[in-house]
């Protein structure tokens, strides 16, 4: 799939559909050969309120590919960089494993790969930017991926029509992973 020139890839996750099955985690680990102990995505189940007035929100979380990516700003070698369609990517060769980006990420999205470089979600850019393994495998179809700068895309329609939030907005990073609530 060829990305539009000004494409802005985002992920939109429907917390009302997510059942917390972790298929996205397994799909990601399989597709990206994520090593044992490392995770590029994970599921958070947040229970709010007191019994019997409870709400449960399941969220599949990952790197937010932030607009204001502090990991890129703080990387001393340029290994963390802006990739295609505004995504945040890591150049494994340039990475020294100084872990400054782990410190700089408010989301805990990064981990040290056994080979020494820092690893995280890539939005599966090796698949061309059209889809991700977690989007494909999700049994409830709660993960949507696409170009937010294309008004006709599914993610644009969802963001325009449904209330949504991002994780830790106060951190000022402007995440590109949105949660429909």
């Amino acid at each position, binding site marked *: 799939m060829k990305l539009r020139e000004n494409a802005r890839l985002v992920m939109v996750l429907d917390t009302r559909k997510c059942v917390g099955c972790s298929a996205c985690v397994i799909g990601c680990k399989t597709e990206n050969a994520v090593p044992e102990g490392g995770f590029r995505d*994970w599921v*958070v189940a947040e229970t709010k309120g007191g019994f019997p007035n409870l709400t449960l929100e399941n969220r599949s979380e990952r790197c937010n590919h932030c607009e204001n990516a*502090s990991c890129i700003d*703080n990387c*001393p*070698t340029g290994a963390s960089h802006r990739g295609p369609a505004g995504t945040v990517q890591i150049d494994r060769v340039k990475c*020294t494993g100084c872990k400054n980006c782990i410190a700089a990420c408010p989301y805990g999205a990064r*981990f040290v790969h056994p080979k*020494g470089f820092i690893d995280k979600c890539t939005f599966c850019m090796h698949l061309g930017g059209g889809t991700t393994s977690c989007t494909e495998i999700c049994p409830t179809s709660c993960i949507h991926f696409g170009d937010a700068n294309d008004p006709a895309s599914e993610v644009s329609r969802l963001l325009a029509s449904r209330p949504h939030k991002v994780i830790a907005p106060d*951190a000022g990073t402007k995440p590109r992973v949105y949660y429909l609530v």
Partner: protein
Amino acid sequence: MNEVEILKSVEHVKPEAWWEWQIPLYLFLGGIAAGLMVLIAVRYLVDPQDVRSRVFRHLAWLSPLLLSLGMFALWLDLEKRWQVMRFYLAFRPTAPMSWGAWILLAVYPFVVLFALSELPESSRARMPVRLRRLAEWAEAPAVKRRIAIGTALVGVALGVYTGILLSAISARPLWSSSVLGPLFLTSGLSTAAGTMLLFRISAWERKALSRIDTGLLGLEIVLLGIFLLTLVTGGSAARQAGALLLGGPYTASFFTIVVIAGLAVPLLVEGREMLGHHGSRWLVPALILVGGFALRWILVAAGQTSGWHTL
């Protein structure tokens, strides 16, 4: 009430300690190296004709020695140690760590030239001819003045950098404070004074250093107070981070080792010495050094547990 369950290894959602002993050790040794550069160079600039003791004239060599040890610790922390040259294949103006890598390179020529120029004649006799000529060149007053100014400035940059390295990381609310740069510089100057007091410098030098150190310890207490104040008067993330030191798991170690043993007791003992009471030669320097190391150890460890994404 919120209950959060994370279906993933917890240490990867909130990695508790990706930086271990190497980083605080580097910040500590780098701080002393920076402080030594500033104190020794400023002393020369204030009075070039002042008679410096033989031991004092050799102390400038401690700076590159300690900095090299610190850089070795930093190198040990890298996951891909043999890719260390990548720091010098790029300059990233937004990354304090990149600035630091280049500042570290600038330190050596200045401090080594200054240390060479400070060597007494008797110590130079055994040096190779080229090195001796370099020392003679650096010793000329006009040249030495420039080298001393450069040494002091690079020393300040190095001392401030050790704090800014942490304060630039806004994702960790405990570190995200502009006070950390001046605080680490002051602590670096104070620990450098403490290190110098461990050597057999002259009685006059000891007295002068103790006085300077008293002022530095007082300033450090004020800066530490401002640092804590900015945390407790900040937003919810800053307040949560401040609670780590004020009532949380790091409170006991922070107040007993850093504030009481590392700052208040040395300040009291040095104050008594200024009034004419005799103190132990080792007690104050040892406490200052332990307190300086504990400050960095605790801030690095506690900062890693602070965050915005409160899971």
